[in-house]
């Protein structure tokens, strides 16, 4: 579903990603972990076609970037720590706008389904600026899945959420994963990543230093695995 080979990203003289090799099978939930500045967000932005690789090849859902970026974007949903929503529009109007941008026909029924999924059907007519941070993040997930993407990228989705909102987001993420979608999530929250993901990749100083599946991790725990990978 995702295939990245020898990916390099430079900003001027600074090299952020130094030859990343990464592949994800359909239906996998991969947690991409690493310290601040390791290049996680840059990596996800390249997968999302928001940034261009300096070197290397990237294929998402069978299409290569950057040449087939529109096809990739049609198969992709992205959730970041920012909700990408318009505060002066209602929840429904925000989803209507994105539905039109994705060419969705009969979007009213789709919007109702998505709002039910994220538990905001009773707030559909309320302005997004009146929503709590947690509600905005749930609506952001609704926005990201409005076009039924095959791949969903989550970049630090828990940033700024309180305990209750984080638990609600856990439920939404589990449901998304249960539908067989391919998910890549970056996070600093090892406990949540361990609970949700089926595979763990550690990105450190611009390279993937270790990979383990949930089964492989049963011999040890994620924190130990993470610390060892950073030392290596």
């Amino acid at each position, binding site marked *: 579903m995702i295939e990245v080979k020898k990916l390099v990203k430079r900003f001027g003289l600074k090299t952020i990603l130094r030859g990343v090799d990464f592949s994800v099978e359909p239906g996998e939930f991969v947690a991409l972990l690493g310290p601040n500045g390791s290049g996680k967000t840059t990596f996800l932005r390249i997968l999302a076609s928001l940034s261009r690789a300096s070197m290397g090849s990237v294929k998402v859902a069978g299409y290569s970037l950057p040449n087939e970026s529109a096809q990739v974007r049609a198969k992709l949903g*992205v959730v970041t720590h*920012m909700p990408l*929503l*318009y505060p002066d529009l209602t929840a429904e109007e925000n989803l209507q706008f994105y539905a039109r*941008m994705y*060419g969705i026909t*009969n979007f009213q029924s*789709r919007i109702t389904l998505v709002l039910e*999924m994220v538990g905001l059907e009773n707030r559909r007519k309320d302005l997004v600026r009146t929503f709590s941070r947690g509600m905005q993040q749930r609506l952001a997930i609704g926005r990201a899945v409005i076009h039924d993407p095959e791949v969903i990228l989550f970049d630090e989705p828990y940033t700024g959420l309180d305990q209750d909102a984080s638990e609600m987001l856990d439920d939404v993420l589990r*449901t998304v994963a249960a539908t067989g979608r391919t998910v890549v999530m970056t996070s600093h929250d090892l406990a949540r990543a361990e609970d949700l993901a089926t595979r763990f990749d550690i990105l450190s100083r611009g390279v993937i230093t270790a990979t383990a599946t949930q089964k492989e991790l049963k011999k040890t725990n994620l924190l130990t695995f993470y610390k060892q990978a950073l030392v290596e």
Partner: protein
Amino acid sequence: MSSAFRLPPSAAPRFLAKPTFFKATMAIVQKDLAAEFRSRELLSAMLVFSMLVILIFNFALELDIKVRQSVTAGVLWTTFAFAGTLGLNRSMAVEKDRGCLDGLLLAPVDRSAIFFGKAISNLAFMLIVEAIVLPLYALLYNEVRIFQPAFLGVILLGSIGYIAVGTLLSAMSVQTRTRDVLLPILLFPVAIPVLLASVKASGGLLNNATFAEILAPLNLLIVYDIVFIAVAFMVFDFVVEE
């Protein structure tokens, strides 16, 4: 709680059509207008600023009727240019500050549709401001000839050119930390031809110039509009990409 989050199955009937350039452009225009008419942040700032500029000119110049007629085009275009810059900055900053620019860029449409959508809504805001400023100017300066159709046509042509180049440059400057300062610094030098041609053409119309006399600035306006719309269409994808 989990049961509340039932995701529609992926095997649901197909509801996706290929988004068209026109539909995406219109979706952006509709979204911008709906958000602005609800918040009125951008329009009110542009309007108050324009009225202040007109008032300041009125008191500062204290001109007799004859001289007033000769400065009308200059005063109006200075006002429109400053107010337009304010609107251009704010319009793109709204997208950037909440990450919505990324939301637009993630849509599977030709990215120049984003340029056209933003440019049309920016133009609509500028025309609304102009529609309010012109009667105010006529009242303060006792100048009713600015309502002649040809004069309004020049204002439309000048506004299109100014917004076309302004939208492109605001997409560029919004990526920087000094965007508020950077946009006018980038925009005014590039917009000099359109502002000069607009002042010349509209001034000529007010001073009863013949059509042949205003043909050159009119041609320049039309060519400028076409060139900058074409340039923006071709380069917008590169401007917004990291």
